[in-house]
C-alpha cells in the first residue's frame, strides 16, 4: 500500500439530478482501469452504471446512497464518494461532505446552474470543501460553457475562471485548449482513452491568449512568484498550477474545466485537475469532540502514529454480512487491532479490511490517515466514531434530529412480514433519522423520518431489496404535547383485593422544562417515600410521557417534581409507586395548561423573480411566516417557516403556480405551539381516530 499521504484524494462528485454525475464516475473508473467496459446509466445492455449498485437507483436513474469507490490516477490514490443530491437525504449528504476533502461540482452546459446546484454549493461552502467545476455535456445542442461560467460567478458567488476552452461545441466538440500548457488536447480512440496534444488551432489562438491572460490575472493574486513572473513575461506551468492550487485550497478560486463524459472528452484532464488542485487529507483541518473533556473540540493531525480516530459513515448489507465504510482521520488501523466505538463504548477487533470498488473489493492490511476503507463484522450504526482504547473522541456531536413525519405500514402477507422486519432493522442502523416502532394499540408498524420522499425511498427499497410488499397509510405529522403552566398533584394509589394490597401516595408538581424532554426532581425529605421507590416514581412519570392526555401525542418539556408522599410497610411496592406517579401525572397534566406542538419546517422556495408574489401568497395560505427574501442572480429566494402539516402536496401546487420553474427545499426547524383554532381540529381528529381504534 502506498503511504504517501500527499498523494491521496478523497473527493465527492456532486450535481443537479441528470447532470451526468454517474456517467462521469463511470468514465473515471474506466480511465483509471478499475472497470474494463462502460455501461450507461440507462443503457441498452441492462447492466447499468457500476456506481449505481442498488436496483432502485438503476431503475430511477438517480443515485440515492453514497457508495465509496477507489481508483488510482497518475500515482495518486483517489477515493470517490458518490453523494446523493436530494435534500431529504440531508444526513447522508452531510455525512458524505464530512468525509471528503474536495469536490467536483458538475454542471450541465445547457441547463447551467440549477437550484439543486445552488443548494449543494451552499452545503459545500458550509463544510469548507474546496471544489473544481466541470461543465459537462458540451456535446449537446445549446451548450454554452461561457454562459455557465458566468452563472457560477453570479449565482454561486464563486471566483470561477476557466482553465480550458472548447475546441468546437455541440456535435462538433473535438477537444479542449489547455490554458495552462497552451496546447490543444484531443481525446482519441474508441473510448477517448488516447490523448493527443497538438498546437492550438489558428482560429482559436486569439481567444486562447485572452482567456489565458484572464486566468493569469486571477491566479497571480495567490502567488507573488507568479505575479513577478507574469510581469516579466515568463510564467511557468508549475507556477500557474501552484497558484491555482493555493487559491482553490483557500476557497478563493474555483478552476473550471469542460468536456463531455458521455462523448469521452475531457475526463482525463479533470482527473489531472483533481490531483493538481484538490487537497490531500493532510491539508484539511478536521476536528473531533473530546468526550472526556465535555465535548471540547480537538484538531486531529494526519499523523499515522497518533491514536486512531475514524468515522463509520456508511453501512451496507453485503453478501458476507455487514460492511462498514470507514474514513480514518488520524492514526493507523491494522488487521487484528482493537478499536472502541465511542458511542456505545463497545470494543471490537479489526477483522477483514478491504478497499471498495462499488461491488468488488480488495483486501488490505492496514489503513492510514485519510484512507477510506470498509470493515467486515463490526457492529455499529452510521455516524459512529471508532478510536483506539486510550482516547475517547467523537467525530460528530451525538445530536440527531427527531423525525417529523410518520406513516403506518402493514405487510401484505406472512412472508412480507418477516422480510419487512429484516429490512427495518437494517435501515434504522444505516440511518439514525429513520425510526420505526409498533403502535401498541393498533399493532401497526409505524415508520418515521425527515420527509415524504425520505420514507418513500425506504418503502421502495423494502420492496426491491427485501421483497417485502407493504400497504402504506397516509402520512401523519408528528405532533407533540407540552405544558405551559405549573400544577400541583397529590395522588394516592390504593388497592385492596385480598392478599397483599397496593398502596402509594405521591405528591408534587409539574412545570415546563425548556432545556429538554423530561426531568425528574426528587425533593423528598424525611424519607416519606423510601429510597428504593424513588426510581419507581421516575419510571412512572417517564411512562406517562408516551401519551399525553390532551390528544394522545408524546409529551415533551416537562419537569416532574415530587416533594411529598406516603408508603406502607407491607403494601407499598415498585409497581404501586409507578402507578401512583402515573396517576399523579394525569392529575396534574390537564391543570398545567397542556398545548399541542407541531413541527415547523424551514422552507426555501427559489424561482424566477416574476413568480415571487404567487410564491409568497402560497406560503401565506399555508400558515407560513415569511422570514425574508433574497436575490440569487435572476432568481429570488423566499425563506419561510411553515408548519409541516400544511406542506403535503406543496410540490404540485408550486409547479402549477410557477409553470414548473420554481423549486423548494425543506428541512426541520423547530417545534412550535399549534394555534388554538387549528389545535382544536387536530385534537378532535386524534380523539376520533382513538375511538375508532377501540
Amino acid at each position, binding site marked *: 500500500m502506498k503511504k504517501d499521504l500527499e498523494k491521496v484524494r478523497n473527493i465527492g462528485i456532486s450535481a443537479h439530478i441528470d447532470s451526468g454525475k454517474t456517467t462521469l464516475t463511470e468514465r473515471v473508473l474506466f480511465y483509471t482501469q478499475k472497470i474494463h467496459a462502460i455501461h450507461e446509466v440507462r443503457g441498452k445492455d441492462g447492466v447499468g452504471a457500476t456506481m449505481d449498485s442498488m436496483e432502485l437507483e438503476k431503475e430511477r436513474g438517480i443515485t440515492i446512497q453514497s457508495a465509496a469507490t477507489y481508483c488510482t490516477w497518475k500515482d495518486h490514490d483517489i477515493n470517490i464518494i458518490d453523494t446523493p443530491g436530494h435534500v431529504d437525504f440531508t444526513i447522508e449528504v452531510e455525512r458524505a461532505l464530512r468525509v471528503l476533502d474536495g469536490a467536483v461540482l458538475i454542471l450541465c452546459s445547457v441547463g447551467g446552474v440549477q437550484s439543486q446546484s445552488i443548494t449543494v454549493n451552499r452545503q459545500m461552502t458550509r463544510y469548507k470543501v474546496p471544489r473544481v467545476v466541470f461543465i459537462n455535456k458540451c456535446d449537446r445542442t445549446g451548450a454554452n460553457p461561457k454562459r455557465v461560467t458566468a452563472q457560477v460567478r453570479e449565482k454561486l458567488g464563486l471566483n470561477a475562471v476557466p482553465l480550458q476552452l472548447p475546441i468546437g461545441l455541440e456535435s462538433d466538440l473535438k477537444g479542449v485548449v489547455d490554458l495552462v500548457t497552451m496546447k490543444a488536447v484531443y481525446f482519441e480512440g474508441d473510448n477517448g482513452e488516447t490523448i493527443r496534444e497538438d498546437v492550438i488551432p489558428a482560429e482559436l489562438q486569439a481567444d486562447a491568449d485572452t482567456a489565458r491572460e484572464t486566468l493569469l490575472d486571477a491566479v497571480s493574486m495567490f502567488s507573488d512568484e507568479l505575479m513577478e513572473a507574469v510581469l516579466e513575461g515568463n510564467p511557468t506551468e508549475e507556477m500557474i498550477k501552484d497558484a491555482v492550487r493555493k487559491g482553490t485550497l483557500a476557497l478563493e478560486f474555483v478552476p473550471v474545466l469542460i468536456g463531455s463524459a458521455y462523448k469521452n472528452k475531457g475526463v482525463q484532464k479533470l482527473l489531472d485537475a483533481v490531483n493538481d488542485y484538490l487537497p490531500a487529507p493532510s491539508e484539511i483541518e478536521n476536528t473531533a469532540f473530546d468526550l472526556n473533556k465535555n465535548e471540547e473540540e480537538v484538531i486531529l493531525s494526519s499523523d499515522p502514529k497518533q491514536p486512531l480516530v475514524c468515522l463509520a459513515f456508511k453501512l451496507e448489507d453485503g453478501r458476507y454480512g455487514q460492511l462498514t465504510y470507514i474514513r480514518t482521520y488520524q492514526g493507523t488501523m491494522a488487521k487484528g487491532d482493537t478499536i472502541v466505538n465511542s458511542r456505545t463504548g463497545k470494543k471490537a477487533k479489526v477483522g477483514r479490511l478491504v478497499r471498495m470498488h462499488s461491488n468488488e473489493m480488495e483486501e488490505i492490511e492496514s489503513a492510514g490517515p485519510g484512507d477510506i476503507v470498509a470493515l467486515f463484522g463490526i457492529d455499529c450504526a452510521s455516524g459512529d466514531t471508532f478510536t483506539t482504547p486510550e482516547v475517547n473522541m467523537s467525530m460528530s456531536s451525538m445530536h440527531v434530529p427527531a423525525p417529523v413525519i410518520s406513516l403506518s405500514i402493514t405487510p401484505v402477507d406472512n412472508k412480507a412480514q418477516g422480510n419487512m422486519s429484516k429490512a427495518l432493522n437494517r435501515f434504522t442502523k444505516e440511518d439514525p433519522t429513520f425510526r420505526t416502532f409498533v403502535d401498541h394499540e393498533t399493532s401497526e408498524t409505524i415508520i418515521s423520518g425527515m420527509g415524504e420522499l425520505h420514507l418513500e425511498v425506504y418503502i421502495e427499497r423494502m420492496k426491491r431489496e427485501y421483497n417485502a410488499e407493504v400497504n402504506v397509510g397516509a402520512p401523519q405529522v408528528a405532533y407533540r404535547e407540552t405544558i405551559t403552566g405549573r400544577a400541583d398533584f397529590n395522588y394516592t394509589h390504593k388497592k385492596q383485593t385480598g392478599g397483599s394490597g397496593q398502596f402509594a401516595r405521591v405528591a408534587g408538581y409539574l412545570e415546563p422544562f425548556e432545556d429538554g424532554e423530561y426531568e425528574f426532581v426528587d425533593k423528598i425529605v424525611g424519607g416519606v417515600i423510601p429510597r428504593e421507590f424513588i426510581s419507581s416514581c421516575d419510571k412512572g412519570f417517564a411512562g406517562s410521557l408516551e401519551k399525553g392526555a390532551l390528544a394522545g401525542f408524546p409529551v415533551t418539556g416537562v419537569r416532574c417534581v415530587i416533594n411529598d408522599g406516603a408508603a406502607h410497610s407491607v403494601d407499598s411496592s415498585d409497581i404501586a409507586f409507578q402507578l401512583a406517579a402515573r396517576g399523579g401525572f394525569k392529575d396534574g397534566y390537564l391543570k398545567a395548561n397542556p398545548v399541542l406542538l407541531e413541527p415547523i419546517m424551514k422552507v426555501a422556495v427559489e424561482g424566477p*423573480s416574476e413568480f*415571487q*408574489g404567487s410564491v*409568497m*401568497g402560497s406560503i*401565506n395560505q399555508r400558515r407560513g*411566516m*415569511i*422570514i*425574508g*427574501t*433574497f*436575490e440569487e442572480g435572476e432568481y*429570488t429566494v423566499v*425563506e419561510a*417557516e411553515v408548519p409541516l402539516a400544511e406542506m403535503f402536496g406543496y410540490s404540485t401546487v408550486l409547479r402549477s403556480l410557477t409553470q414548473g420553474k420554481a423549486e423548494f427545499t425543506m428541512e426541520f426547524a423547530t417545534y412550535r405551539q399549534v394555534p388554538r383554532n387549528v389545535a382544536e381540529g387536530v385534537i378532535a381528529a386524534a380523539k376520533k381516530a382513538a375511538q375508532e381504534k377501540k
Partner: protein
Amino acid sequence: MLKTDLIAKNPMGAFNRDAKGNDVARMGLVVARPGLGKTAILVQIALDSILRGKQVVHVSVGESIEKTKAWYDDIVSDISASAKHEDMGEVQMDVRKNRMIMTFNASSFSRPKLEERLNDLIYQDIFRPCCMIIDGLDFAKVDRQMLTDMRELQKEANMSIWFSAVTDRESQGEAGVIPAPCDAYGDLFDTVIMLQPESGDESKIFLNVLQDASGCVAPGKSLRLDPTSMVVWGATF
C-alpha cells in the same frame, strides 16, 4: 415585566412617535463610522414598531438573511435579559410575525426593484409595513435622484424609512453638522442621528441628535450607548 414596559423603556420610540403617542412618518438617517452600532440602533427603532404590533421591512444591502436575523435575536435576548422580561417567547413571536427581511446585492438596489418586491407583499395583503429599515447602503455611491425617489416613496406610502450610512473614518464631525458623505443630502431627511465616541475615550459612545424636523426630539440631545450590547435601553431623552 410586561411588554408595555419594554416599549416604554425603548428611547427609540421618540423617533417614531410624538409626545401624544401618534406615529409620525419620516425619513431618518443614522450615521457613524464603522463598528459603532448603526445596525443595533436601527434594530431598536424597528423593535419599537414591532412590539406595538406594527410591521417592519428590514432591507439589508449586501448582508445575508441569517446575519440580519441574528441581529434581532441578539438584541431581543439582550433586552429581555436586562429588563427581566419573562415571556421572551412572546417577544420573539412578535418579531417573527411583524418583521420581514429583504436582502439586495449592493449593485442591484434601486427604488423600482424595491417597490416591485414590496408590492408583491402589499397587494396580497401579506404584509403592510409602517416602517422600513435600509441598512448597508453605500452613501458614497448613491446619487441624489435615488434618495429623492426614496423620499417620494416614503411620502406616498406614508411610512417611515430609516437609512444607515458610514462616514469616513477620519471625519470627526463638528458638533451638529452632518458629516461626509451624507452632508449633501441633509435636506432630504427629517431626522439625522449620529453615533460618536467621546474624544479621548473610545469606549464611551454617544447617540447625538443632529436634526429633527418632526419636532419629536430636540436637536442637540444625547444618550450614551451600553458599551457591550450597543443598545440604549432604559434611557430617556
